[in-house]
């Protein structure tokens, strides 16, 4: 092995291609960068940018038919770009360790942690079982697992998500590698655990002088741990520099756009600036005031007016789900998804609900939308208790309350054309004459959400996640609702697409005077979108307040804890930001 002086890993003009029946798709073109010992290099970009592909290509884990078309990958001067089979197997684990995204599936559920660790150590380092056992104990200690002797004998299901990721890291370190590739190591974890895992990776890299490529889409992760950052855009490396420089003084147009799209924690913006770089959006052209969309059903609106400016009142709502069924009542177990929840939503405002997974925020949304019937309590919409209505009586109210769902990939019927998806509610509620009038309205709606009227003939699978979410919004608007529930509408999307969708929602709210309920686990997003916020935990609403007051001086202990875990990106470039000056309050 010729040891050239220089970097631990050097990637030189790497090109990766995916040949398919429609021609050759280039996933990565002409990417060069290097990683030094003990350094963490962040590889950031949005889905489809090719960042994971680079990580996989280094250790020949490209899923077929992908192949390295040209370029070199030098590991301490030795070219490993075109090694396959046995040759690359000697490098995997021994010299390059890999940390996968989802700790729930990357461990074998049928083997104990000890078996998995010892097997890895024997395969990479050799030696006796005794040595391997000692080594695995030591590894478990170094990744911060308490009581390692006991934990070694356990199976993966006995570990929490964060603990499993620690085990995955221990396995990655088992062969004493010189380089670690971590592919979105914290994406599947809760915020609080995310922080600890990143800290662990950082310390281990420093102590052991191991280089690390950290693949991620999350600017918060980048800001926290990396030394240098490479920004990928559509298979190209557009910018590389020290983390501080990239975050504070981005040079490339795309990087600037990406950073401006990150929901900020320090100021509330009116709109996200300059996000048009990412996905082409058709211009929106209809005049809503004089359009079908802007007109309400007068008689219904007159009958059901908001009382004292309060459109929706949730009063002492309880709902429990059975977790263990049994014949006798005393043996049944329940989980309280909604525990004495009460709040009000004022007409025209955006009310936010925030909480971690399982806190019951989606349950409340589904109760309001009429998907679940609460065990007790009432939902008052403009003075009418919805929970007491029969299915038939409720239909006109269902039109008033619509919902945008979380997952853009499952919320649209894959067998229906986009036109039919949007026309379906109009037809059902007979809101317009069938034929030309309905067709015109659907075309205008598509135009208005930025997709262009021509996309009606296509099917959902022909669109990207962000575009699908636009279709979903158009469908929700097709009944001309006054109240729109958004259940994590952007959590499956990239940041820049998220910014576009949030802009669209803000615009629609202004134009149509919608009242919105916005549900998210993402505090910065909530801050950007909502006028008032409720914090939920274990089915209980622990605190409700004006957004700015809540962020400035949280009252409840849990709110304080949540806020402290929020990634702080205070030094982000502020170029081109449009703030809401009268509301700008510094974060405590």
């Amino acid at each position, binding site marked *: 092995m010729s040891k050239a002086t220089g970097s631990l890993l050097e990637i030189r003009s790497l090109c990766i291609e995916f040949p398919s029946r429609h021609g050759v*798709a280039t996933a990565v073109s002409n990417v060069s960068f290097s990683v030094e010992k003990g350094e963490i290099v962040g590889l950031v970009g949005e889905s*489809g940018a*090719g960042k994971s592909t680079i990580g996989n290509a280094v250790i020949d884990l490209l899923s077929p038919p992908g192949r390295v078309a040209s370029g070199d990958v030098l590991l301490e001067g030795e070219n490993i770009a075109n090694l396959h089979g046995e040759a690359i197997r000697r490098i995997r684990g021994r010299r390059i360790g890999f940390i996968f995204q989802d700790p729930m599936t990357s461990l074998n559920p049928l083997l104990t942690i000890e078996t998995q660790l010892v097997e890895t150590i024997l395969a990479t380092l050799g030696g006796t079982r005794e040595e391997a056992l000692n080594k695995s104990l030591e590894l478990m200690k170094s990744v911060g697992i308490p009581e390692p002797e006991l934990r070694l004998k356990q199976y993966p299901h006995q570990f929490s998500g964060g603990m499993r990721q620690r085990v995955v890291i221990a396995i990655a370190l088992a062969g004493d590698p010189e380089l670690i590739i971590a592919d979105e190591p914290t994406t599947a974890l809760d915020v609080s655990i995310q922080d600890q895992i990143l800290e662990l990776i950082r310390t281990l890299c420093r102590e052991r002088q191991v280089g690390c490529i950290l693949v991620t889409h999350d600017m918060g992760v980048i800001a926290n741990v990396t030394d240098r950052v490479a920004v990928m855009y559509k298979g190209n490396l557009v910018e590389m520099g020290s983390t501080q420089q990239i975050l504070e003084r981005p040079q490339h147009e795309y990087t600037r756009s990406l950073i401006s799209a990150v929901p900020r924690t320090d100021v509330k913006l009116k709109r996200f600036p300059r996000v048009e770089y990412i996905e082409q959006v058709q211009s929106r052209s209809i005049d809503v005031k004089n359009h079908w969309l802007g007109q309400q059903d007068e008689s219904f609106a007159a009958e059901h007016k908001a009382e004292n400016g309060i459109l929706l009142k949730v009063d002492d709502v309880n709902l429990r789900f059975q977790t263990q069924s049994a014949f006798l009542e005393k043996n049944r177990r329940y989980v309280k998804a909604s525990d004495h929840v009460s709040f009000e939503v004022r007409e025209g405002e955006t009310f936010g609900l925030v909480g971690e997974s399982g806190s019951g925020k989606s349950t409340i949304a589904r109760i309001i939308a009429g*998907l679940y019937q609460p065990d007790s309590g009432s939902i008052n919409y403009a003075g009418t208790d919805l929970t007491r209505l029969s299915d038939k009586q409720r239909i006109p109210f269902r039109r008033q309350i619509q919902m945008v769902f979380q997952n853009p990939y499952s*919320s649209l019927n894959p067998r*229906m054309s986009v036109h039919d998806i949007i026309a379906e509610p109009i037809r*059902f*509620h007979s809101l317009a004459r069938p034929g030309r009038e309905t067709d015109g309205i659907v075309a205008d709606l598509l135009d208005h959400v930025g997709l262009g009227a021509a996309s009606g003939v296509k099917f959902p699978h022909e669109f990207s996640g962000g575009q699908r979410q636009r279709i979903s919004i158009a469908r929700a608007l097709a009944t001309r609702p006054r109240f729109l529930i958004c259940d994590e509408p952007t959590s499956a999307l990239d940041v820049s697409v998220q910014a576009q969708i949030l802009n669209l929602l803000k615009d629609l709210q202004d134009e149509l005077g919608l009242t919105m309920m916005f549900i998210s686990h993402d505090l910065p997003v909530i801050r950007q979108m909502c006028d008032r916020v409720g914090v939920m935990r274990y089915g209980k609403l622990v605190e409700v307040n004006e957004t700015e007051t809540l962020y400035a001086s949280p009252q409840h202990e849990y709110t304080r804890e949540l806020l402290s875990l929020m990634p702080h990106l205070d030094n982000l470039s502020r170029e081109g930001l449009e703030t809401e000056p009268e509301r700008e309050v510094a974060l405590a």
Partner: protein
Amino acid sequence: MNEAVVPARPETRWQRIRQSNIYYYFLRDKVAMVSAVILLLMVAGALLAPVLAPQNPYDMAQLDIMNSELPPAWSEEGDSQFLLGTDDQGRDLLSTILYGTRISLTIGLFAVILQAFLGIVVGLTAGYFGGRIDGFLMRLADIQLSFSTMMVAIIVLAVFQAAFGMELYSRMAMLMLILVIGIAEWPQYARTIRASVLAEKQKEYVEATRVMGFGPGRIMFRHILPNCLSPILVISTVQIANAIISEAALSFLGLGMPPSQPSLGALISSGFEYIFSGTWWITVIPGIVLVVLVLVMNLLGDWLRDVMNPKLYKG
């Protein structure tokens, strides 16, 4: 990642088919292609039997008992007039096989349509409403499945024959076979549909329709059912093959089609008495036709199942 080449939007229906994944995989699978060609030939032969067959085996006037049990044309005693020889009543075996395939395919197809109709309604209802309705309908399906198809069919057909006599039975045979096979096998469909309805029901597009206020009928048939069609298509090919086999088995036992209108199974059965006297062709040739027919259907079904598996596209 794969932005490189996006094909232009197909214009006509034919172009759309040519660009579809199924067509693409079809061209790359020799087994599927050969199976499809054989199946098409057999179906065409059955459909065009009145045109293709040298003789109408149902017309007694065309038969001559002197021609009975002639071996195929290629053997020494064969008659060039009868390519595959004749059966015990002097019918041209080729003609009889063409007409018999027609009967077998008709019974298979209609029995499966009946199965599918019952199964889809039951499975959709059970899966969508869940709870007690689901429990009741699925236990019903379990009970139905615990009787073997053949047992039910034999009892029903035997009772019918005994009660109404052979003459009425001969006239009603085809209808009876379709009903018996159709009713005996619906749980297969019900189970498959129910499983996919349970998966689809979880998806947010179904919740969206409920938020809109749509009724259960509209949600079930207009929104959920179209998304459950691929498994139906896959089991249908296998079920047609199964129904044809069931029919053949029943006919072989003398409970199927009458000798005057033989299906493939009845033909095999009628030749079986003579097999030890050297007249093998009456049994063996229809037997080969039956095996090939069922085999190509199963092969196509297997292939369809692989292609319809969405995991295949992700690679």
